[in-house]
């Protein structure tokens, strides 16, 4: 879902507004539970309610604005989450386990990469009792400074990522604290964190819960501890969950994560089983993704208003130049001219209609596409290495498309495939979807990636495909979208929205690998047919010789001559056929 929609319609957007506009409490809950909460305007809401009643029959008033006002109070995001946990991917016990692991892993990998450390993760899932698990995710990242630990794990919507336009796995700062809160809700146990920032610093152990009323961390325990790691973080969450195998399992998630993060080493201990090690396929960190400023095409009015409000610049022309990418002095002049706003105006003083005009003016001038050094694709080579390590196929291919832009957000699409070998030939192909290297395991049918795969006619590339279904054949397909802001259809980050620009790029990438796959398959078929014919000739011609010898009482020499001649005749016809 786009940020615009988020603000305008559904309940969860106000979550982000809350963080985005920092701790002013009034801003947080406005529409959160669809209750009239804004304290300064209770009468309006009451009247609205009254107006909604049918006009014909005058109803008895059940409450006054004042009596309603007594029930109206602020809702904390944490409370909101408790009621709406499905929005964040905790709708059932199996998914909760996956989501919790995923949020922890996302954070670990982001931290390692940002710090420039080749990640090594340890993921443990222990079954304590029926439907009760303790998960632990440990990394070799930079660690977290002591003062920040409670807030990161004990407060929803606290984090470094939401305000930045940078390709990262996490986007909102909800994930790991939500996972902790889910554990707290279902078991009453706090999140345990051990972190160490350097060999010189002492490792700290924290036990943190969320005060859901206030959305504030409650530290239950804080102490120095022993830890063999030089630096890194270990998070443990106890939760009600269920562990299952197969599609959408944590097992699959870990495997796919290894696939999309070939620079990462993962030790995975599923409940009651041996530890599985996913070794690195590449030994360099991916290029670091640069943080970029927002591009004017992708900025909504509300965001623009806030940016101007927060701006320290004296002139709007400076503010535009500083806060946006690709706004040159010339373009800024054009925009302000069209908007009818003085370049000398103070951003903070602009009224809403003026800001609206500026916002409109963005669309009327030509602005260069945003810089794309903010993207860090896996890369064709690394994708191939990863695939080779995990799948025994006889054909591999990968393509990384050049960066493109949707609504001012740069993004980049990658497709890799493995075909043949020991992959199952009679089943539908497997499609692995990734966004910023994170596997997407739910809502495949709602996802732009699936749509793109289905929209390509794989039959023309030598695959079987029935209408409306994925192609059939021995193939796995990996699709990755890297972007500073991946447009998920919901906050649980399961499916990518159908932006035409994204679908188009996906299709182009698929068709490119498809064409080459087609060549490969046809070549293979031709060679197989050729070999079969060859075999046919060698196998059956001697029998014609034997028969003729028996019927005509030929001598061996005569027989040999017939057989040799027959070979010549058929070889010649074979060449003509090919």
């Amino acid at each position, binding site marked *: 879902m786009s940020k615009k929609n988020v603000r305008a319609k559904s309940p969860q957007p106000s979550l982000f507004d809350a963080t985005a506009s920092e701790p002013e409490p009034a801003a947080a809950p406005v529409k959160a539970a669809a209750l009239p909460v804004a304290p300064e305007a209770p009468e309006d809401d009451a009247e609205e309610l009254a107006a909604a009643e049918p006009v014909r029959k005058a109803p008895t008033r059940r409450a006054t604005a004042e009596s309603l006002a007594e029930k109206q109070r602020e809702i904390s995001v944490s409370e909101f989450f408790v009621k709406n946990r499905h929005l964040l991917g905790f709708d059932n016990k199996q998914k909760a386990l996956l989501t919790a692991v995923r949020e922890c892993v996302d954070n670990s990998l982001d931290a390692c990469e940002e710090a420039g450390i080749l990640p090594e993760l340890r993921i443990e899932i222990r079954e304590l009792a029926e439907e009760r698990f303790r998960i632990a995710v440990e990394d070799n990242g930079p660690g977290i400074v002591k003062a920040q630990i409670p807030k990161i794990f004990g407060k929803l919507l606290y984090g470094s990522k939401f305000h930045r336009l940078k390709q990262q796995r996490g986007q909102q700062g909800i994930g790991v604290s939500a996972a902790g809160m889910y554990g707290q809700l279902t078991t009453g146990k706090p999140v345990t964190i051990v972190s160490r920032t350097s060999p010189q610093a002492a490792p700290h152990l924290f036990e943190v819960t969320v005060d859901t009323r206030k959305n504030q961390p409650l530290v239950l325990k804080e102490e120095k501890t022993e830890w063999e790691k030089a630096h890194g973080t270990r998070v443990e969450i106890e939760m009600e969950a269920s562990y299952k195998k197969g599609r959408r399992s944590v097992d699959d998630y870990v495997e796919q994560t290894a696939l999309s993060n070939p620079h990462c080493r993962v030790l995975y201990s599923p409940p009651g089983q041996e530890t599985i090690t996913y070794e690195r396929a590449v030994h360099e960190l991916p290029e670091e993704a640069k943080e970029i400023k927002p591009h004017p095409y992708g900025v909504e009015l509300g965001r623009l208003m806030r940016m101007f409000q927060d701006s320290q610049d004296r002139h709007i022309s400076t503010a535009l130049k500083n806060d946006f990418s690709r706004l040159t002095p010339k373009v800024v002049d054009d925009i302000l001219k069209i908007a009818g706003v003085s370049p000398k105006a103070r951003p903070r003083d602009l009224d809403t209609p003026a800001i609206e005009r500026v916002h409109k003016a963005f669309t009327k001038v030509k602005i260069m596409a945003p810089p794309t050094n903010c993207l860090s694709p896996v890369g064709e080579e690394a994708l191939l290495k990863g695939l080779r390590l995990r799948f025994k196929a006889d054909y591999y291919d990968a393509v990384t498309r050049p960066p493109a832009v949707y609504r001012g957000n740069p993004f980049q699409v990658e497709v890799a495939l493995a075909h043949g070998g020991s992959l199952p030939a009679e089943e539908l192909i497997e499609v692995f979807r990734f966004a910023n290297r994170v596997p997407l395991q739910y809502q495949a049918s709602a996802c732009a990636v699936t749509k793109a795969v289905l929209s390509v006619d794989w039959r023309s590339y030598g695959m079987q495909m029935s209408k409306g279904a994925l192609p059939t054949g021995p193939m796995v397909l990996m699709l990755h979208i890297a972007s500073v802001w991946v447009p998920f259809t919901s906050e649980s980050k399961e499916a990518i929205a159908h932006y035409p620009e994204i679908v188009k790029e996906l299709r182009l990438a698929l068709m490119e690998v498809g064409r080459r796959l087609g060549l490969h398959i046809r070549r293979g078929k031709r060679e197989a047919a050729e070999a079969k*014919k060859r075999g*046919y*000739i060698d*196998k*059956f*011609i001697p*029998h*014609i010789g*034997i*028969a*003729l010898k*028996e*019927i*005509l009482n*030929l001598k061996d020499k005569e027989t040999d*001559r*017939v057989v040799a*001649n*027959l070979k*010549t*005749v*058929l070889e010649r*016809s*074979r060449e003509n*056929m090919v």
Partner: protein
Amino acid sequence: MAKSGEAVSPVISQIVDTARAVETKINGLKKPEMKFPLRNLSNVRYSAKKGHFEMLGKKKERTLAVSTVKSFAQTMRMIALSKQMIETDERASKRDAYYQTKAWAEARCDEQPESDAILDDIEGLFGVNKEQLCFTPDEHGGLVAGELVVVDRAEVGSNATIDIDCTKFGSGAYGIPSDVEHLKFKTKAKFILCIETGGIFERLNRHRFWEKADCILVSMAGVPTRSVRRFVRRLADDKKIPVYVFVDCDPYGIANIYRTLKVGSGNNAHLNEFFCVPQARFLGVTPQDILDYDLPTHPLKDVDIKRAKDALKNDPFFQHYPEWAKAFELLLKMGKRAEQQAFAAHSLNYVMDTYLPAKLKNPKSFLP
């Protein structure tokens, strides 16, 4: 029909000529070919005068190419096997022939229908029957009961004969052998009644219907084999007695069983001349009988409907007779079929006591 013993040399020379032609082509660096008559209904026409299917000249040419090299090799080897058997006066059943192919390594047949098709091809290629090529059918003959004495040889190779009285098998019956050419017959029966199912045959035999009706009963057990067709044909020709056919009222009983008995099949049409009974007439069950006798029915299955439409559209025999077209149309209109045994709905012996006597009073009404 020529007996295999007399035909030895012509068949052998045909075989040698064919092989020689193939060898010559190959040594001239040309692709050899063999021509087989097409074995389906599109290659036959119904000759009302002769009373059976005749072959049209359509042939398929099997030119040796990469894609046909396997079946070409198999055909050649089967011909070689046949020649060898003729020379040594040996016999192989179709099943034996199938197992013989197992010695051909890669050219072996995986299932018997494969080797059967090769035998059919060779029959067509030389225009002779399997027996002349020293292959014998595995098929079982039908059963015979009634006013007939079959005169058979007492022993293979002996001139002595034995008389087999088909009234004296009690609750059993005489089994038609696969080779019937040497049989002779004694009978005063008025007609031969060929019956589709063993059930009705048993009922009529148990109650000695043949005695009351003065007839010979033949159980065909489905589509009659070549030996049954040949047996009935020889008997009917020899003794100049009519042949009536009593089968289920469905497209299979009519188009497959009756049609094959009377005029032969599309497969191997060159042999129909011998393996058909042109004098056969269709006693029942007719579609009209379903109405007249108020028989319990089953709905026609899709395959029945397809078969009926196919008979109307593609079968030269049914196309020749408007009566049959009418009967099929009635059947399709009713959308129902009835079995011989359906008469049991009235009473167990209704078929014997009421239906057959009533029908036999008026043989002229039988369908052609």
